[in-house]
Each structure stands twice: as C-alpha cells, then as structure tokens.
C-alpha cells in the first residue's frame, strides 16, 4: 500500500510538477511581452534548462532569409568542457539536416563523454522559424511529460518569438521612420537655409523676383516687383493669378495660359508680357521666367522666378529687326544684294537678296566654286583679277565692276557691283560689296535705245513728208523777200526819175535775204549730207514690216491694198536700217500717190523682197498707178523733180543716194499693165565688197558691173 501510495504520491507529485511547469510555460508570453527576441530566447532556454534538467539546449532562429540565423547554446556545468557554441550548433545542424519534416523525434548522439538524447523541436509549423534542440544524457529522456512540456514550450516560443519579431519589426519601421524624419528635417533645414539665402538674394536682385507655391500662389515677391507694379504683397498672395491684373489686357490670355501650363506641369515657364508700371502708367515688356525647385522625392517645392524688364532690348531688337527688314525689303525692291568677302580665307557671307539674285537656296554655304558656277564664263576671270588686285594693294580702296551671270536656264543677268575693301584688325582684307541686278535696267535701257532709234527712225522717215513743208517754209520765206525786193528794186530803177536811193536799199536787202537763204540751204545740205551709213545686221523683211506698220493707216486711208511678198530665205544684210526704211517708205508713198486718182482698178501695191544674183537682196515696190512718162524716166531721180502740186521732188533722189551708199542701185520700170515698179538691189555685205569684188571681178565681172551701175 505504501509503495503504491508512494508510487501514487510520486506520480501525483510528478503530475503536479508537470502542471506547474505547464502553467509556468503558459505564463511565459506574459513574461515576454514587450521584450525583444533575445530576451524571449534567454528566458525560454533558461526555463527549459531548469525545468527539464537538460544538459544542453540550443536554438537556431531563422528570422528572415536575409539575416544570419541567431544561434544560442546552453550547456549544463555538469556536462564538462564543451567546444564553442557555434561548433556545437554546426554539429547539431549537421546531424539534423535542413529538412524539418524529416527530423526524427529523437536523436542519439555521442557528445562529450557519452551518449546524449536530443529532441529537436521545430519552431513554426514546418520549422521555418528555426529549431530548439533539448538534450539530456539521462536515460529515458524525454519522458512523456517532458516531451509534452517541450512541445508546449516550443509552441509558446513560437508565439512569443513571432510577437517579438513583430515588435522588433515595428520598432525597425519606427526607427526607420524616425531616421528618415530626422534626415528630412536636416535636409529641409539646409534647404530652408539655402532658400532663405536665395530669398535674401532675391530681395536684393535688381530684377523682380518671386517664388510660387506648388499650386502657383506667390509666397514671396521681392520689393522690385512690388515697387514696379504698385501691388501689395498681401494682394499678390491673395490668389494665384492676382498679379495678372498688372499684365497688359492683350497679353493676359497667353500669359495666364503659359503660367498655368508651367505650374501644373511642374516645368516652370518663360514668357514675355507687358506689365503696367505703376509709376507712369506705361506698359513695358518683361520676360518672366520660373524654374522649379523639387524635394528629394521629386515633389514640387517651389517655383522661383524673375521678371526682367526687356522693353528697351525689345524695342532695340524690334528696331533692328525692322531696319533689317527694311534693308532686306530695300534690297529686294532694288534687287540689291550685299556680301562680305575675306580673300585670305575665301569666307563669303551673302545677304538674302543676293541668294535670290543668284537663284540659290537662301543660306547655303557660299564658295568661290559656287559663284564661279553662276558667273558668265567670260567674266569669271574678274574674280581672279580681284584677288590679284587685292594682293597688290594696301589699305582700303573702292572699286566697281560689271559682270554677267549665266543662269541654269541660259538666261543672262547683268550685275553691277561696288566693293569697298578694308583691313580688319589682323590686317586681312575684307570686301563689303553691294551687288545690283541691273538686268531689268539694262533691258529697259536697251528697249529705250531701241525705242529711241525707232522713234528717230520714225521721225527721220516721217520727216521726209514734213521736211517738204519745212524746207518749203525755210526756203520760201527768204525767197519771198528776195523776189519782192528785187521786183521793187527794178521798179524803183525803172521809175522816172529812178529812185536810186530806194533801189539801193532794196538791193541791199535782196543781198541780205540771199545770204539768209544760202544759210538755209547750207543747213539743208547738212541734213542730207552724205554721212556713211551706220552698219548693222539688217533683216530686210523685218525692216519692211516695220515700215508697213508705220504707214499702214495712211495707205488704208488712200484705199491702197498692200500685198507683201517677203522671201523666206532672205539673208541678213549689212547696212543702215533706218536709211533703208526711208527708201522703202518713199517708194510706198510714191506708189500710193501714183494710185490716188485710180478708180477703175484695185489700188494694189506689192512690196516684194527676194534674193538677187551675186549675193544680193532685191526689194521691189510695184503699184497699179498712173505710171510715168518713159521720156522722163531719167529725171525721176533728179532732186526737185516732181509732177505733184505739193511734191518736193527729193524723195527719189535721196533714196537713190542712200542705196548707192549701200553699194547698190535703185531703178524704175514700167509695168506691162498699168503702173510702175521701183526696185533696189544691194549686196549683202558692203563692207566685205571691196575684197570680195576683187575676186568677183575675175569670176563674174557682169555682176559687179551691174552693182556699179
């Protein structure tokens, strides 16, 4: 009984102890609360050691994959000398392996002097948190209750550790937060100091300066701005775009748009606006620039900006732009280009108009090659000459030259350039040149010269008609005096008694008028003086057409039907176009005159050009008029021979002299039917005639014979 009782009492005692131990273990988390992991482990291991009289207890904790595991080993003093903790752990780890599910419930290892029973207790369901190893040398370890206690302890440890870990994590975060706050505070303080410095600077800057909050509201505006605009700081700060009331009404919309774009995008802005100057109520152009300040996270802290008065620059720029535009416009209007040339480097700068004149793309690099490609081949040497001149001369000089451009379409432009050469600081010469496209002027001049010569020709050709009248007037006036005086003189002398004094007076006057008359005749002779004809290449057909154009109205008035028969293959002749036209006009007039009484047939007037023998051209004017008396045929060409009541009789005589001056001849024939034909035939080139004659005299004497006729 006693034994039983003792057994029972022992059993009860054991159980009581077990329950005590259990209670103790269950109370552990309360003990742990607020403690960190090392405290938890410390209490746990100490408790287990004491409670289960263990010889060795170790724990390995894998709190996270990154951190190295915590390993703690406790060994009873009785266990004797032991290797260092980490070696024991390593040995334990080694005997256990990594895979917790495969861990046996009990391991028997040789350790120290003898065998030890080791119980591995996984922490966490899969042992993911780590492992506690409880070991004792005594046999039978662990007993049932001991195993129970170990399991409870392990699960309690698990809870405690997880809580502790959570706590430590929280603390970590808190610490990190604190650290960051501290760092940021330091940064902000620094930044603020910096800002304060900047603000201080901003106040003193000679420009309007300001800062904006991230939402665009001004928080700082320096004195310069407040004084300029007359706005108060409170007003400016009252709303983000209060400042805009100082902007010129026309600029407000764009200013507001740029401002808000810059603020909302966090990019800052740069814009030009006109701001009202409070002092005098004028608007002046300002440049507003804002840059953004960001914090470490990239958030907008502030915008810092300046407003600079650029009115003067802007005006100056505008003036410059305008004067440049004027210059460009002037150059365009005047077709004047300009360039700058440094012969040493062949560096050439062109104005836009010059590109336009040269028909090159504006801005393309100008090289001498490029210029050469445009300058007329005959004028290219000018460029080389200029370089030579440049080398030969010292100091500044001006010169002027004319050259031509040969454009890709083969058209020619006439250029007139005036250059001024100077030396720069380095002694290198530099040409400033103005180049004018004078093509239009040239063409106008040519046209004017042509028009003038045509005018002259018209005048000269027409004057034969008017000449008749004017010659008559010039001659008849003194002639009238002569005849009247002479008559008077005769009558005075024939009177009874003769009036000698009066006669002498009238005779004197007669002589005077005679002299006047000879002056007139001298003038007329000068008019018809045998000037050498100017020689030019004449297309006789063209000359005929011009005369027709001149006289067609008159011919139509006289109901003349003009029939031109102009040869296609007519060679050019050398001669005086205007004089030849006078002849043609005379022949047409005479033909027309000869038909003025013709009513029974068409007043047909044929004008014909054709090649003539011996490299000559022939022109014939054939009418259907009254013809002429064959007896008088020779006299037709005499000066002052006329059968017309208002005729002068010089047309044919002048015409013949003109044709003879062209080494040709002029003759008249009567038609088979009614009317006459007047023809002239002239050699193609009177200039080459002398030489050509020499040959032709031998080869074809008949031809030259007729030319001389």
């Amino acid at each position, binding site marked *: 009984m006693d034994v039983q009782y003792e057994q029972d009492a022992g059993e009860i005692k054991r159980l009581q102890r077990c329950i005590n131990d259990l209670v103790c273990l269950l109370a552990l988390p309360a003990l742990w609360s607020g403690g960190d992991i090392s405290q938890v482990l410390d209490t746990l291991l100490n408790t287990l050691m004491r409670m289960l009289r263990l010889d060795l207890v170790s724990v390995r904790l894998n709190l996270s994959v990154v951190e190295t595991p915590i390993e703690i080993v406790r060994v009873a003093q009785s266990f004797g000398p032991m290797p260092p903790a980490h070696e024991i752990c390593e040995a334990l780890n080694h005997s256990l392996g990594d895979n917790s599910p495969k861990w046996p419930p009990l391991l028997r290892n040789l350790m120290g002097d003898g065998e030890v029973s080791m119980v591995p207790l996984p922490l966490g369901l899969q042992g993911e948190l780590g492992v506690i190893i409880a070991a004792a040398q005594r046999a039978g370890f662990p007993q049932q209750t001991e195993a129970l206690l170990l399991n409870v302890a392990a699960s309690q440890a698990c809870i405690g550790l997880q809580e502790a870990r959570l706590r430590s994590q929280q603390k970590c975060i808190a610490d990190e937060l604190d650290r960051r706050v501290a760092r940021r505070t330091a940064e902000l303080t620094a930044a603020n100091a910096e800002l304060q410095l900047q603000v201080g600077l901003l106040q003193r800057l000679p420009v309007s300066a300001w800062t904006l909050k991230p939402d665009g509201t001004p928080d700082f505006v320096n004195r310069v701005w407040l004084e300029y605009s007359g706005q108060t700081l409170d007003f400016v700060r009252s709303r983000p775009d209060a400042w805009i009331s100082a902007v010129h009404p026309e600029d407000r919309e764009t200013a507001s748009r740029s401002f808000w774009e810059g603020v909302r995008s966090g990019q800052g802005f740069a814009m030009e606006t006109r701001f009202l100057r409070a002092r005098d109520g004028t608007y002046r152009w300002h440049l507003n620039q804002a840059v953004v300040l960001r914090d470490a996270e990239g958030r907008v802290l502030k915008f810092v900006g300046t407003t600079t008065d650029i009115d003067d620059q802007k005006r100056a720029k505008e003036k410059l732009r305008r004067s440049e535009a004027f210059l460009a416009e002037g150059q365009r209007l005047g077709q004047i280009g300009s360039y700058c040339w440094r012969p040493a480097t062949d560096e050439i700068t062109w104005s836009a108009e010059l590109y336009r004149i040269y028909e090159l793309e504006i801005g393309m690099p100008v090289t001498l090659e490029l210029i050469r490609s445009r300058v007329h081949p005959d004028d290219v040497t000018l460029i080389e000459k200029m370089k030579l001149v440049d080398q030969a001369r010292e100091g500044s000089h001006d010169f002027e030259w004319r050259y031509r451009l040969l454009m890709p379409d083969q058209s020619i432009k006439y250029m007139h350039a005036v250059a001024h050469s100077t030396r720069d600081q380095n002694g290198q010469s530099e040409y400033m040149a103005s180049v004018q496209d004078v093509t239009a002027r040239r063409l106008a001049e040519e046209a004017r010269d042509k028009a003038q010569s045509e005018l002259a020709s018209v005048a000269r050709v027409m004057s034969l008609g008017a000449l*008749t*009248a004017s010659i*008559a*007037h010039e001659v*008849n*006036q*003194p*002639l*009238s*005096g*002569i*005849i*009247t*005086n002479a*008559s*008077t003189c005769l*009558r*005075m002398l024939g*009177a009874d008694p003769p009036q000698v004094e*009066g006669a002498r007076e*009238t005779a004197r*006057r007669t002589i005077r*008028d005679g002299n*006047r008359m000879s002056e007139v005749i001298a003038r007329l002779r000068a008019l018809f003086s045998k000037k050498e004809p100017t020689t030019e290449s004449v297309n006789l057909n063209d000359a005929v057409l011009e005369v027709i154009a001149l006289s067609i109205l008159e011919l139509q008035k006289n109901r003349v039907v003009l029939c031109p028969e102009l040869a296609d293959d007519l060679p050019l002749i050398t001669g005086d176009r205007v004089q030849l036209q006078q002849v043609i006009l005379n022949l047409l007039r005479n033909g027309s005159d000869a038909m003025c009484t013709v009513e029974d047939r068409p007043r047909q007037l044929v004008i014909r050009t054709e090649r003539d023998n011996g490299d000559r051209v022939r022109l014939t004017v054939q009418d259907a008029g009254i013809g002429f008396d064959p007896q008088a045929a020779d006299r037709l060409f005499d000066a002052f021979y006329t059968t017309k*009541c*208002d005729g002068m009789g010089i047309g044919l005589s002048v015409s013949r002299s003109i044709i003879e001056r062209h080494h040709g001849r002029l003759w008249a024939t009567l038609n088979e039917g009614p009317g006459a034909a007047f023809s002239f035939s002239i050699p193609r080139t009177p200039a080459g005639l002398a030489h050509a004659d020499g040959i032709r005299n031998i080869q074809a004497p008949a031809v030259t014979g007729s030319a001389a006729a």
Partner: protein
Amino acid sequence: MSCGVLPRRSAIDRILVSVVDDDESVRESLPDLLQQFGFAARAFSSAEEFLASGCIDQTRCLLLDVAMPGMTGPDLQQELIRRRKTIPTIFITADVGMTVRQRLIEQGAVECLFKPFSDTVLLDAVNSALRPK
C-alpha cells in the same frame, strides 16, 4: 502806230493796203513794192497789233500771213468778220498746201499767194481785191 501819222494827202489820195506778217523781211519788202504800185502801205508784225492800230477802217486791202505766233491770219479774218469790218483779204503763206488755199478762199479770202510770189501776181491779187463786187 496810228494812221494819223500818215501824210494827210497820202491818206486821202492813196488806197491803204495793210500787211500783217511776223516775218520781218516781208514787212520790210512788201510795203515798198506796194508803194511802187501806188498804194499806201502799213506793216504790222501781228494780228493783235493791227487790231489795236486804228487803221482797220482805212484799210482797203489786207495782206495777211497765215501762220503767226498768237493770233493766226485766219483768226484775224474771223475776228474782223465778227466785228463787221470786212476787209478784202489776200493770204500770203510760205507753206505749200493746196487744201489750205482752197479752204481759205472758201472762207472768204480773195486769194492765197504762196511765197515767193512775183510782183505781177501780187498786183493782180490786190487789184481783184479792190475791184467792187
């Protein structure tokens, strides 16, 4: 110039023929020839001078140049017709033009002489101008 300076007898005895011409040689020569014919003659260098002379009423025949600066010969003729001072007029001109002659005669001229003209042609013309119609 006034006709009052003429010798009184001449003014009564002789018929006054006035010459209006801008050409000096005509003004010099024609009056002498007219005087040789027995007429009294006065010369005026312009139509205006003649109109202002006070000789219009005495003038029995007018020798009138066609082309003159200022008032032309035909202008003067028309002006005289307008003033109802019709004087037989002979035009003298240095410009040859049959059409002009034709027109002047149509407008009432007695004759149109082309310079130069002979003394007999002149005398014939003046005589026919003085012949009562």
